[in-house]
C-alpha cells in the first residue's frame, strides 16, 4: 500500500464516512519498505492538486518520516529551468524543453509512490475499527454488524 493511496482512503463504514475523523486512517504497527518505481512527472503534476495536504503531513509525522512543508506546493514547484540530467532521460517526453524536475519533485515521488506499507493496521479515529494490511494489500471488508 503506497502512501499516495493512503491519502485517498477513509473508513469503509457508511456510518463513519460523513465524519471528518474517518479520514485519514491512522497506521499502527506499520512495516514500511521502498519499491523502486520509474519517476513520472506527468503523473505527479496531475495528482498533486488532488492530495489532501494536511493528511499527508499528518501521516509523515505518525510514521516518523521526514516531514513535508505546511503548505501544499503548487505545480510550479515541481520544475525548474535547467538541463535534464542523464538519470532522468526517460522522462524527456513528459517535461517541457529546458526544464528539469526539482529536488522536491523527486522527494515527493519517493514519498508517495516508492514508500509502501507492507504490514500493519489502518485504524479509523472515529469508530476504532482496524483494517489489516498484509503483504501490502489492505482489506476493507466489514463484518455484518458494521455494514
Amino acid at each position, binding site marked *: *500500500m*503506497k502512501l*499516495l*493511496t493512503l*491519502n*485517498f*482512503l*477513509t*473508513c*469503509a*463504514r*457508511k456510518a463513519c*464516512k460523513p465524519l471528518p475523523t474517518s*479520514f485519514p486512517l491512522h497506521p499502527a504497527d506499520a512495516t514500511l519498505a521502498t519499491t523502486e*518505481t*520509474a519517476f*513520472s512527472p*506527468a*503523473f505527479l*503534476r*496531475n*495528482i498533486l492538486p*488532488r492530495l*489532501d495536504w494536511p493528511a499527508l503531513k499528518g501521516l509523515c509525522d505518525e510514521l516518523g518520516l521526514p516531514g513535508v512543508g505546511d503548505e501544499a506546493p503548487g505545480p510550479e514547484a515541481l520544475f525548474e529551468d535547467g538541463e535534464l540530467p542523464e538519470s532522468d532521460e526517460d522522462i524527456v*517526453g*513528459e517535461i517541457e524543453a529546458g526544464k528539469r524536475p526539482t529536488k522536491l519533485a523527486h522527494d515527493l515521488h519517493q514519498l508517495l*509512490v516508492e514508500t509502501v506499507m507492507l504490514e500493519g493496521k489502518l485504524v479509523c479515529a472515529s469508530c476504532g475499527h*482496524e*483494517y489489516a494490511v498484509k*503483504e501490502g*494489500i*489492505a*482489506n*476493507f*471488508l*466489514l*463484518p*455484518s*454488524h*458494521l*455494514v
Partner: protein
Amino acid sequence: MEYIVRFAQTHETFRRPELEALATLWNIELKIVTYSEDSPFCVVRLPSDDVARKLVSRAILVDSVYELWGSGPNYEALHADVKAKSQGKWDKYTTTSFRFNVHGYQCKLTNKEQRPIIESFSYLPFDGPIKMKDADVQFWVFEEYEMYAPSPKFLYFSRFIGPGGRDTVLKYDLKKRRYISTTSMDAELALITANIALARPGGLFYDPFMGTGGFPIACAHFGAMTTGSDIDARSIRGKPNRNVLSNYAQYDLTDYWLDWFISDLTNTPLRISRFLDGIVCDPPYGVREGLKVLGRKDGGGTEAVYINGVAAHLQEGFIPPKRAYSFDAMLDDILDFAAQTLVDRGRLAIWMPTANEDIELAIPEHQCLKLVANCIQMFNKWSRRLLTYERLPDELVGELIPRTKRIVEGSNADELNNFRRKYFEGFKPSTPSEK
C-alpha cells in the same frame, strides 16, 4: 486533407467511438466524411500526415491510415478523380522508391488479376525504383465488393501513411497471460475499453472489479497509473508467482501499477472527492461470477460475535458474510460513485449484459454523466455492451435532483438479477404464468 482509415471488420460498433475518443484525447480535429458499419473504409478529414499517423497509432480497431488520392464507383471514374484531385502531389514522388498494392475487401485478387490494375496507373510520373521490400512510398488500390458480387462497388487509390495499433492485441493475448480467470476480458476488448476511457500517461485509472487485472493492465499499457480493488481477496492475491503483479511484470508494466485493496464498492473506503481520471470495469452479473456485496441475506448479524471473549471479526482467517445483490442496483451505485470521484471530463467505461429481447432496455442515466458511446457485442441470444460516460463539469450539471435508487425485491440471485435468470432459462420468451 482527406485520409482513408482502414478499419478491421470486427467489433463494428466500437470502431467509431474508439477513433473519436483518440481524437478527443489528443485534441485532434477529426471530421468523419463517410462511414459505414459494413465497410472497412472510412474517409476522414485531418490536418496533416503526422496527425493522421498519431491518431491511429494506438487505435486497436484500425489496420492503417492512408492519404486519399481518389475514389470512384469504377476504374474510369477512379482515374479521373485521381487526376483531378491529386495531380499536385505527383511531383513529390517522381524519384523515390515505391511499390503498388491491390487489396480487395470481400474478394481475393490473384497476382495475375492485380497486374493490369497496377498498370492502369502508368500515367503517374514515377521514375523511382520499384522495391517490393522497404519501399519509401507505398500506394494502395482498394476494391470494395458486396458479398459474392462479381465486380467491385467502389474503388479507392491512396498512399500509405502509418499503421494502427492492432499488433498490441497479440502481445496481450490471454492465452499467453500467466494469470487469468473465467471472467477475464478478452485482450482486444480490454484495450479498446482503455482507449475509449482515454487512458493516458499521467492519468489515474481505477477498476473496482479488477479480478485478475485485465482492465488496469490495458490502461497501464497506454501509460496510465492504475489501481484496482475486488471483493474477492483470492483473486487479488493469487498464488506466489501467479497474481496480478506477476501479470504486470510479464508485460514490464510494474511502473504503472499503483495499488490494490480488497473492498466492496457499496462500502468503498475511497475518499469521496474528485480525483480519478477514469473508471473502467466489467462488474460481475451473476453468470460466471456471482454478484455479491457485504452483509447477510437474512439481515441478521447486527451484533458482533465473540469467541472466548475475542471479537470473531478481528481474528485471523475471518471471512465476512456476503449476500447476493441486484445488478441494476449495482449499476446505480457505480454511476453514483463515478459522479462523485471522476474529475471533470473524466470517463466511466462500464460493461453490461442484456438479453436480446431487452435490447431496448433503458440505459442507466445520471445527471452528472453524459453518455458518449454505446457499443454492442452481439452473441447468439444475448449481448453485452460497453457504455461510456463523461463526467460533466458542475456548471453544466445545474442543481442536483436527488436520485431514487431502483429497488429490486428478492433475496436470491435469480430474483435479484433478471439477466441471470433469463440466461439460465435459455432466454425463452416469457410465458403468462410468469409474473
